């Protein structure tokens, strides 16, 4: 068995997005890791948001690099036995970054993880859209990897969530209390807050986390989608009215964005996947 503990694992987050909601996914996950006792020196972030500091620094997340530095930085970190990489943000067909300007291709990400000094096992959780482009890579070579995805070759989904208590900033003030969270990622880290044995083998393993996150996220999506058909009609009417009444462009843009997302979501199914499941069964939290 492999045992993840507070000090033997490097937790890495990678995010290509200019929308703060994806940075908030990281803020939430880091909060869970800290509650587990993980020190900030074991957490690394790679993002491309141009104003990332005003979103991350209030929560004491300072160990942040640009995504384009990921390959170089990973090979120069302090030795860790385990590396857990979580990808959030926007996904593209060619990797992380824009379709025409991939910053990190799937093979590069895998090689970067394997370059971490001292690594014996790596985990890559792909929660962005089209995470399946990382599927079926060579996971068996040494050091071995487990890859899992929120969905395969479809868009992944985010859902508006509201925390019971706002996350505290380093200055003690209340901060983030709600955002559109990547639903698979949020449910993975919710599991990590209180790991639970799902399959009954007596251990709380990565395979249990995958099962819990997959079922819970799909359950949330199934429930919320029920009202989306009517909402699409309401938004379509609102957009027509906004055009008819020549409402400001900022309003029409917002309605159009909501309508577009609603229509796409109604036709999108999120299906989680995992590669190298036997190894995931051996990784305890």
């Amino acid at each position, binding site marked *: 068995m492999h045992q993840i503990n507070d000090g033997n694992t490097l937790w890495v987050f990678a995010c290509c997005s*200019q*929308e*703060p*909601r*994806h940075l*908030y996914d990281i803020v939430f996950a880091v909060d869970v890791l800290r509650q587990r006792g993980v020190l900030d020196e074991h957490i690394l972030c790679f993002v491309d948001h141009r*104003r990332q500091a*005003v*979103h991350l620094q*209030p*929560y004491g997340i300072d160990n942040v690099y640009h995504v384009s530095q990921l390959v170089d930085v990973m090979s120069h970190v302090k030795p860790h036995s385990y590396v857990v990489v979580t990808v*959030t*943000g*926007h*996904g*593209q067909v060619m990797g992380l970054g*824009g379709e025409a300007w991939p910053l990190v291709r799937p093979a590069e990400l895998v090689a970067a993880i394997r370059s971490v000094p001292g690594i014996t096992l790596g985990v890559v959780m792909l*929660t*962005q*859209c*089209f995470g399946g482009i990382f599927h079926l890579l060579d996971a068996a070579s040494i050091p071995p990897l487990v890859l899992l995805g929120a969905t395969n070759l479809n*868009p*992944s*989904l*985010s*859902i*508006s969530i*509201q925390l019971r208590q*706002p996350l505290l*900033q380093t200055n003690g*003030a*209340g*901060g*983030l*209390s*709600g*955002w*559109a969270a*990547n639903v698979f990622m949020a449910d993975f880290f919710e599991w990590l807050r209180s790991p639970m044995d799902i399959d009954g083998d007596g251990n709380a393993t990565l395979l249990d986390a995958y099962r819990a996150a997959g079922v819970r996220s799909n359950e949330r*999506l199934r429930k*919320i*989608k029920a*009202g*989306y058909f009517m909402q699409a009609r309401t938004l379509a009417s*609102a957009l027509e009215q906004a055009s008819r009444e020549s*409402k*400001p*462009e*900022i*309003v029409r*843009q*917002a*309605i159009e*964005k*909501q309508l577009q*997302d*609603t229509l*796409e*979501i109604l036709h*999108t199914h999120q299906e989680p996947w995992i590669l190298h499941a036997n190894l995931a069964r051996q990784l305890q939290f």
Partner: protein
Amino acid sequence: MKAIDSSDLVRLAAEVKSLIRDGVYSLYTVQHPSAAFLLVTSQDDAYLLASDGEVVDGASGASEVQVEQAVCFADPPARDSLHVNWI
């Protein structure tokens, strides 16, 4: 990060507030002679807002304004929402 009530922005449309609350749009406080906030709606679109949420300037260049703090809403949302994670 500055937490405010969405109702403070009385002149800003509910549809826009919803996208700010979800973190799809970005809202920042700014030091500016005629604006209190910068609203970023995409890589190409940004608006300067008065303290009540009224759009005071949608001209190009707004996105280059120096921002101070990110803004989030402290009050709960009116309804659930979903978004896809691709551009």
